[in-house]
């Protein structure tokens, strides 16, 4: 069947499924709207959490990042999975025992302070909105490429779909849709990986293919990859390029940022019992790990395939470089999107792809072979996963499947984020602060209106992304790591932590992280407003801005503990509350105050 027909069929079919689920799982109460009535089975919740967590970035961008950074991209693999260990052991069971609807609600009650609650709402909204912009953009890009519609039309279709199932179904509708979306996205990710692993290494399991020998020789796949990239002047794939300090801090920032992201935490409010919350984090990581352990194989094999497509024989022989006119179909397709570009600098009609930033190699290549610079002038990392099935000559239905998978990943994360935003507006701001006497019916209506508003804002920002869209992700993790995670953890593990300490800790953690990022990346990311150049010799102790969230968290802990020691201990009933959330006994099945 024609590729375009297949894509319409796959994408249309999955969308019909999502909307069908939404109509079946309508939310009737605020409990169902915010936390799916706390009746979700831990395995089902694990699957929904995985879809919630794995965004367009995990599905589309991560393997490309690994392909071009090699070993150094390990920080993302460890950082975005290790956070679940912290979540399972330090937060999820206790917050489930507390038994309320939102993260700011816990912070407000535990620290008996509306200020603390408002600071938490602020952190939550900034972190979630920055995140959702990227998702909406991902939806637009995926639609644009696969459905051949305008980018804006793509975003509009995405908004309409999310609107139907998120506004109608709330958390209940989102949860069951996310389960379906997980199945679509994981199938779409692993099928091409299995095919490519089979082609290259003869092993159907990508995780084993990564450490296996090539199908046609006794050379290990990774050794061969190291060889072909160093032959072209690049550094070894498996070798460390950044400093260990930055790798440690970035991993730590991503881990505690993950554990502090509100849209992930609220997923653990939906299970029936405390013990389910513990297991559910484990199941979530099982479903996440299937993709995250496949990604290193996808990345390394895609890099190898890419290099070997262009460099077909020994480096230096003129006929070993691909003739531009004979380039494969997928290269031509991606060239039209502008994400892949060639320039025949030495007018030989062939493509030379090598590292011309390596002065020694570049000089040698020019002198001996007449190479005048790298001719693959642009290769966007994001195309690696999307183009992978085409690079490996896989059947059309696999390409259609990847299109549906990428959309599932972006839509599921967008819906989870939108729920976190709308619940903090309707529940924390409206019911918590401005209209405490609002009826459940009206609160549910307010939640739906807030959700609809959030979708419109997210769609608008997705269509008109601020220039800094790519950099704000670092900010989202930095915020969650330096403000939300420490406040939650101390709320459970430090009985004597009081309101003044917690608020001061959150504010100093938050401010130090934001200021450090702005100093090097520009105030509010406006180009030219940075105080210092963003290079390693100007960084404090050589710490890159992306890694600073962990330092901000340490500052938060230190300030909060110091201040709580010299100010009044929390009242008796708060200390009892902490004792109560530490034991599972007596957790209610649902609680609406």
């Amino acid at each position, binding site marked *: 069947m024609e590729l375009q027909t297949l894509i319409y069929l796959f994408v249309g079919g999955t969308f019909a499924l999502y909307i069908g689920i939404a109509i079946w799982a309508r939310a009737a109460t605020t409990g169902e709207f915010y936390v799916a009535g706390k009746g979700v089975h831990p395995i089902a919740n694990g699957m929904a959490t995985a879809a919630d967590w794995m965004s367009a970035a995990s599905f589309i961008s991560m393997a490309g990042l690994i392909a071009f950074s090699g070993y150094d991209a390990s920080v993302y*693999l460890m950082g975005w999975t290790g956070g679940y*260990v912290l979540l399972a*052991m330090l937060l999820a069971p206790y917050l489930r025992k507390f038994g309320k609807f939102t993260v700011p609600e816990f912070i407000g009650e535990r620290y008996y302070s509306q200020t603390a609650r408002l600071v938490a709402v602020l952190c939550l909204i900034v972190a979630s909105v920055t995140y959702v912009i990227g998702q909406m953009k991902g939806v637009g890009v995926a639609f644009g490429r696969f459905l051949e519609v305008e980018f804006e039309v793509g975003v509009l279709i995405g908004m309409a779909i999310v609107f139907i199932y998120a506004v109608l179904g709330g958390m209940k509708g989102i949860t069951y849709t996310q389960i379906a979306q997980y199945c679509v996205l994981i199938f779409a990710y692993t099928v091409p990986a299995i095919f490519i692993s089979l082609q290259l290494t003869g092993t159907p399991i990508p995780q084993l293919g990564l450490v296996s020998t090539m199908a046609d020789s006794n050379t290990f796949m990774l050794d061969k990859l190291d060889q072909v990239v160093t032959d072209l002047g690049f550094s070894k794939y498996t070798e460390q390029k950044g400093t260990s300090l930055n790798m440690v801090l970035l991993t730590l920032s991503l881990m505690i940022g993950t554990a502090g992201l509100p849209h992930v935490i609220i997923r653990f409010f939906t299970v029936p019992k405390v*013990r389910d919350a513990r297991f559910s984090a484990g199941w979530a990581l099982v479903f996440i790990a299937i993709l995250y352990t496949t990604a290193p194989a996808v990345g390394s094999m895609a890099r190898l395939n890419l290099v070997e497509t262009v460099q077909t024989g020994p480096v230096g022989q003129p006929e070993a470089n691909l003739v531009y006119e004979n380039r494969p179909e997928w290269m031509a397709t991606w060239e039209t999107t502008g994400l892949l570009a060639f320039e025949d600098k030495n007018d030989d009609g062939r493509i030379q792809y090598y590292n011309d930033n390596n002065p020694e190699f570049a000089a040698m290549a020019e002198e001996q072979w007449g190479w005048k610079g790298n001719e693959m002038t642009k290769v966007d990392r994001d195309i690696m996963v999307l183009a992978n099935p085409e690079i490996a000559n896989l059947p059309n239905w696999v390409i259609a499947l990847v299109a549906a998978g990428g959309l599932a990943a972006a839509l599921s994360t967008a819906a989870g984020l939108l729920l976190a935003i709308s619940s903090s507006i309707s529940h924390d701001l409206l019911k918590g602060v401005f209209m405490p006497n609002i009826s459940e019916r009206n609160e549910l209506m307010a939640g739906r209106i807030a959700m609809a508003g959030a979708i419109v804002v997210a769609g608008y920002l997705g269509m008109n992304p601020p220039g800094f869209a790519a950099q704000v992700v670092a900010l989202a993790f930095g915020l969650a790591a330096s403000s939300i995670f420490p406040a939650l953890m101390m709320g459970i593990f430090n009985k004597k932590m009081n309101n003044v300490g917690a608020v001061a800790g959150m504010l100093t953690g938050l401010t130090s992280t934001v200021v450090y990022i702005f100093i090097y990346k520009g105030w509010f990311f406006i180009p030219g407003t940075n105080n210092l150049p963003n290079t390693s010799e100007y960084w404090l102790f050589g710490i890159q801005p992306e890694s600073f969230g962990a330092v901000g968290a340490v500052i938060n802990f230190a300030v909060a503990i110091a201040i709580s020691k010299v100010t009044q201990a929390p009242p008796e009933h708060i200390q009892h509350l902490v004792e109560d959330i530490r034991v599972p006994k007596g957790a209610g099945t649902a609680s609406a105050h």
Partner: protein
Amino acid sequence: MSDPAKEYWKANIRLVTILLVIWFAVSYLFGIILVEPLNAIRIGGAGLGFWFAQQGSIYTFLVLIFVYAIRMNALDRKFGVHED
């Protein structure tokens, strides 16, 4: 806090501490700090440090969470603080 609840909390902290030491070791220690020396040992086509950074740490995280969940549920019963 009554005595069994105190004991329960102590046992909980002990368990979490042990598991987090392993969490630290497989990711930060094996995957980053000791990656060079560990890469001298090979696991198939990858150095052991590289393998821990891209595969092994994730598998260990999984085991850690399930060990935690099973051990904690047992502690809940032992100290009589389990649900229903």
